[in-house]
């Protein structure tokens, strides 16, 4: 019997080792798997490379993972958001490496990582500092830059509903990087608001096919980052 269900976020992330490369879903807080990230902080893995569109806000979720010095490098398109305090400090002090990638290039590098395509040419960033040192090639008179696929040891994503096979559906703009990150990691761990019976989700509307998901854990009422940030909460919780 196939059963990818884990009881708790802590059990789901228990074997993530030091030095792992981890994709973390989300665009800002929408789709950010905050409970899985907190479990990863509890677990203690360090020297991590994180692939994520942003670098977190306040002192919870991804920002807290950075604040606890678990991350040596972040591959990211927009590390500067409202209420992002941790990343700018670490970056200015030289305590974290940043690989800045245009958002669409980041998405395509992840998609290719999951699709067996090692590299691709894109017009994005040609003539800018982000193309410096990269191979440029002309197709039909237009210049393109060579970009390499991204893969990961683990992906942590948040979806709306899933089943024990690992089929996933998402909620509104919280879908963002989830489906492509599920494809690009050796082990994808999805937190979902609700685990339903196999067959309950209409096969016509499944967004992530179950083959791309290895572990699924239910978090019925996930925390809201903007609420925690407005209350100036820090993870681990102090009281």
């Amino acid at each position: 019997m196939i059963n990818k269900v884990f009881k708790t976020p802590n059990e789901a992330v228990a074997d993530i080792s030091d030095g792992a490369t981890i994709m973390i879903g989300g665009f800002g807080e929408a789709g950010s798997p905050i409970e899985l990230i907190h479990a990863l902080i509890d677990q203690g893995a360090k020297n991590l490379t994180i692939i994520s569109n942003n670098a977190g806000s306040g002192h919870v979720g991804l920002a807290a993972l950075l604040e606890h010095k678990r991350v040596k490098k972040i591959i990211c398109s927009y590390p500067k958001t409202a209420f992002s305090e941790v990343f700018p400090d670490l970056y200015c002090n030289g305590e974290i490496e940043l690989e800045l990638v245009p958002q669409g290039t980041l998405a395509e590098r992840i998609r290719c990582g999951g699709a067996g395509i090692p590299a691709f040419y894109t017009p994005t960033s040609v003539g800018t500092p982000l193309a410096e040192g990269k191979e440029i090639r002309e197709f039909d008179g237009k210049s393109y830059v060579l970009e390499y696929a991204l893969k990961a040891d683990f992906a942590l994503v948040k979806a709306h509903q899933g089943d024990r096979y690992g089929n996933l559906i998402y909620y509104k703009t919280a879908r963002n990087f989830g489906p492509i990150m599920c494809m690009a990691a050796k082990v994808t761990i999805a937190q979902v608001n609700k685990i339903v019976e196999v067959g309950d989700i209409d096969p016509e509307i499944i967004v992530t096919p179950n083959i791309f998901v290895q572990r699924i854990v239910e978090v019925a009422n996930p925390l809201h980052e903007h609420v925690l940030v407005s209350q100036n909460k820090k993870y681990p919780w102090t009281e």
Partner: protein
Amino acid sequence: MAKLVANDIPDGSYVNLGIGIPELIANYVPQGREVIIHTENGLLGVGPAPAPGSEDFDLINAGKKPITAIKGACFFHHADSFAMIRGGHLDFTILGAYQVSQNGDLANWSTGSPNDIPAVGGAMDLVQGVKNVFVIMSHTTKDGNPKIVKKCSYPLTGIGVVSRIYTDLAIIDVTNQGLKVIKLSPGIDKDTIINKTEAELIF
């Protein structure tokens, strides 16, 4: 400015709006026109801002502000969203800028200052893939320095990508011949705009 831009977007267009002033354009689409607004984090069909108290933080725009979705809207993941952008499927993108040069180079993601946290987002993808790249910005900096320049001094977002510039003083098209002023704002004369622009202008 946002109203002027909104007026120039034809019925049936697919439009991406950048962060900041461009977000306001959605409020000025003239009655009777259907314009589908794309937000690169994964939605076609951005609707008006939600009523206070009914915000959903899983339904946000590229600026991470809560939005609504119109009837007929659809959600998609990031690789699809940037296939729409890079693949040339969108008609317009409206972006802010630090500088635009004579030949339509755009600088809008970094001032290049060592204290600046580098962040690029989707700007470099948008300028390469969207059919018409419109810039909306103040004509000069807060200190009165020209933002329409011969050559950008800030790091580039793209080379020769801008098609039109809307400022508080004028609407300017980027043409093969150079920057052509197609409309001056009320009360603005030729000399004023020439003085506040470093690049050559054609009238």
